[in-house]
């Protein structure tokens, strides 16, 4: 019989101090046992992070308050515990790691001292014993050169190394419960895989109970023993991993799983002889850091990138962060100037045109950015945002607004949305608006720079469908930049894999993603979480292959 470490029973969290306020968490009950990983899954706004912060007692005082139920850690009630008692329990009995390793560490304190703080606060060890313990722990989380890293500031470390520091900090006192709030979401797939393995191994060695919060079904398939699905502050269903993935009982869970794009590329579309609309030849971008005295530093962000895109086709550029994929996109749109090579748009060289001469060509290529919350001007109505481009190119205001209405309907929003402001829309709707804005100029090429990465899977699926539909209807060519191989598999005809600013491999999506030739592409695919599962069909990929033979 294993012990229950965390027992959340009928928890209610409301906005404000009164229990009559709006409920953010509405009566959820979860148990996490020793040596068990419970994955708490849900889309944004489902209340999964609020749940974890409630356990730690880290909710913003005054704005959100637990008003009902109980949270017990190894039998001890946390909701009524004093601040002092909660402080004693943190790091010793329960610890937490966060999503963003870039911002979760104090930038002005060496990382070793940040771990040391935990030991100073909770133990009586002397300086030497503390340091030894920290270095041991750092080796335990497989950090290299621990002495050097001990004295380093966070900005000297990579994202993966920082997350290892966070894990070392959380586990140095061997707490009974580890809460991991999207710990790998901000990391590249290869790093993500290492961190997931690390958490698994540490859990096995120490018998820690893990409450793992994520929105990524792939990660769930990799790490969970049991799964709890949340939606709008309520628990939808709980169960062992296998039964949730194979036989979800609730409609919502089924839809959630069905929205996860498959790693198996969609059937290839026929090759076309349509004209080439976009060509990049040996495109290069070097950033030079100038300094007042002495020599500057050079960073090669893109090196000899060559690609072609035909009318009505979708070309994906995939790669990890720092691979140069966004640099290439921005050079092609001429948001930044390439340092070498050429870009031909509809047969016309544009890489060396001056800003002024470029102006007539700008409308042929439009871009949609990653973050729909920041890419629309909050003080301008949606209609004006969409109409701004055409008006710049001489279209009369009334005509441009009429076109804006049509475009909003094209992207699946009501035409009367023109008069509203961006904050009145959800993330998915805003991305639709951003797409409408890009389409307003009738471009030949649409560049989507991680355009669906910030969206929940169900919304992501809708936006991908929308892009596909628009392409069929308008014959537009799409250059799709993404780090997500699943998304690439579902929307791209051709794929370019980039690493360190260079093209590693390119070819038809089915070819590259199913039979990669290069080691790097293989390692990327290998690291994709949940690659063994075909979520949409509720079965492992292997079974699907067996069934189709």
């Amino acid at each position, binding site marked *: 019989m294993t012990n229950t470490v965390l027992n959340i029973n009928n928890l209610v969290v409301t906005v404000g101090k009164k229990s009559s306020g709006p409920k953010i968490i509405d009566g959820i009950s979860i148990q996490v046992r020793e040596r068990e990983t419970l994955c708490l899954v849900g889309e944004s706004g489902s209340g999964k992070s609020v749940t974890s912060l409630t356990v730690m007692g880290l909710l913003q005082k005054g704005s959100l308050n637990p008003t009902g139920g109980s949270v017990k850690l190894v039998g001890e009630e946390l909701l009524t515990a004093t601040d002092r008692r909660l402080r004693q329990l943190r*790091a010793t009995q329960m610890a937490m790691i*966060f999503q963003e390793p870039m911002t979760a560490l104090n930038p002005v304190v060496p990382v070793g001292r940040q771990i040391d703080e935990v030991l100073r606060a909770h133990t009586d060890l002397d300086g030497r014993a503390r340091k030894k313990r920290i270095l041991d722990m750092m080796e335990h989380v497989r950090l290299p050169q621990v002495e050097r890293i001990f004295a380093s500031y966070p900005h000297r470390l990579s994202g993966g190394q920082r997350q290892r520091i966070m894990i070392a900090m959380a586990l140095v006192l061997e707490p009974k419960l580890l809460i991991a709030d999207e710990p790998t979401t901000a990391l590249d797939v290869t790093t993500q895989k290492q961190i997931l393995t690390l958490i698994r191994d540490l859990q096995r060695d120490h018998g820690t109970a893990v409450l793992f919060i994520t929105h990524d079904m792939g990660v769930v398939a990799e790490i969970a023993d049991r799964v709890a699905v949340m939606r709008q502050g309520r628990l939808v269903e709980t169960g062992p991993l296998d039964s949730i993935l194979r036989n979800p009982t609730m409609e919502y869970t089924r839809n959630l799983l069905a929205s996860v794009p498959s790693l198996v590329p969609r059937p290839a579309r026929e090759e076309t002889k349509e004209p080439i609309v976009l060509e990049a030849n040996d495109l290069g971008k070097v950033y030079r850091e100038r300094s007042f005295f002495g020599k500057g530093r050079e960073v090669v962000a893109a090196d000899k990138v060559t690609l072609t895109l035909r009318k009505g086709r979708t070309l994906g550029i995939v790669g990890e962060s720092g691979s140069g994929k966004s640099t290439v996109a921005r050079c092609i749109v001429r948001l930044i100037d390439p340092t070498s090579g050429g870009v031909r748009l509809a047969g016309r060289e544009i890489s060396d045109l001056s800003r002024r001469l470029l102006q007539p060509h700008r409308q042929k290529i439009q871009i949609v950015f990653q973050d729909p919350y920041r890419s629309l001007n909050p003080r301008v109505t949606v209609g004006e945002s969409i109409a701004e481009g055409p008006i710049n190119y001489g279209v009369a205001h009334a005509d441009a607004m009429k076109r804006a209405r049509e475009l909003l309907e094209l992207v699946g929003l009501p035409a009367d949305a023109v008069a509203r402001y961006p904050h009145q829309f959800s993330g998915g709707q805003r991305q639709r608006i951003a797409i409408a804005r890009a389409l307003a100029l009738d471009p030949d090429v649409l560049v989507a720079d991680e355009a669906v990465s910030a969206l929940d899977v169900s919304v992501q699926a809708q936006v991908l469908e929308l892009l596909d539909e628009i392409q069929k209807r308008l014959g537009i060519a799409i250059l799709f930049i993404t780090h997500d191989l699943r998304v690439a598999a579902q929307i791209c005809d051709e794929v370019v894999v980039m690493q360190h600013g260079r093209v590693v491999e390119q070819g038809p999506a089915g070819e590259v993603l199913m039979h990669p030739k290069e080691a790097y592409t293989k390692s990327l695919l290998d690291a994709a979480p949940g690659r063994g599962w075909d979520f949409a069909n509720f079965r492992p990929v292997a079974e699907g292959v067996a069934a189709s033979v």
Partner: protein
Amino acid sequence: MLGYLVRRIFAAVPVMGVVALFVFLLLRLTPGDPAAILAGDNATPERLERIRTSLGLNEPLIVQFITWVNKLLHGDLGTSLISNLPVLKMISQRVEPSISIALSTIILAVIVAVPLGVIAAWKHGTWIDRFVMGLSVLGFSVPVFVVGYILIEIFAIDLRWVPVQGFKSISAGFGPFFERIILPTCALSFIYIALIARMTRAAMLDVLGEDYVRTARAKGISEVAVMMRHALRNAAVPVITVIGTGFALLISGVVVTESVFNIPGIGRLTVDAVLARDYPVIQAMILLTSLIYVVVNLLIDVAYTLLDPRIRY
């Protein structure tokens, strides 16, 4: 670090050069004969000629500039037209009161304002926060001479704890020095307390929303440690900027306070020189003020790199 310092000091040289050129041209390029301006309205031709020769006004402009800079580098700032004393001597007599008051004011302001700002941010939205902010609005709105006269009335006239006005050098003993400097320091620090407290609060509020503050709390360390070790150090950069520029302003621009408390500082020296059109003194004051700003800015930048390891030049 040392290399950075040396580079920064070298980079300050051209700045001071431009200032020197401007100061030099100020007199030469004003319409009319500089000698006539210097000599005043009732000058005899002989006196004009004497001034011309002494200033080298008959030489080409570039030669004049080189001679002038050369003298400058040897500590010769010219002679006052009014008192006929060397300008360098006039200024050096006035520097001690000004620097003493600026330093004591900034120290008092920081000691009072930073904790106030931290507490206001920590207790954000409570009556403590509103009280501190109310205090700072008061500090901004009451003119320094009003505060000065009120302080004199209470502590010097009614209670007779300290002298009404004047300044004693610290070489005359700490007691007399302190007695005379305390009231102007209090009066002046009023507005700086308001400014720095506000700045600290705003910077702290920004930082308190950061992820690493949440991480620090998740470690189970005390709130005091969270505030001091994690929040305040990250909030320090904008606060240091305000403190530094405040200090530079204080050295050269406290004319009103110097008048109220009858302190012979460089603020009053400047104003007197401007009113009397004492050009050599004005020139020297512009140079001195620029130098102070350059040095203070250098110190601020050095403080940045010490506070935040990410900042490297």
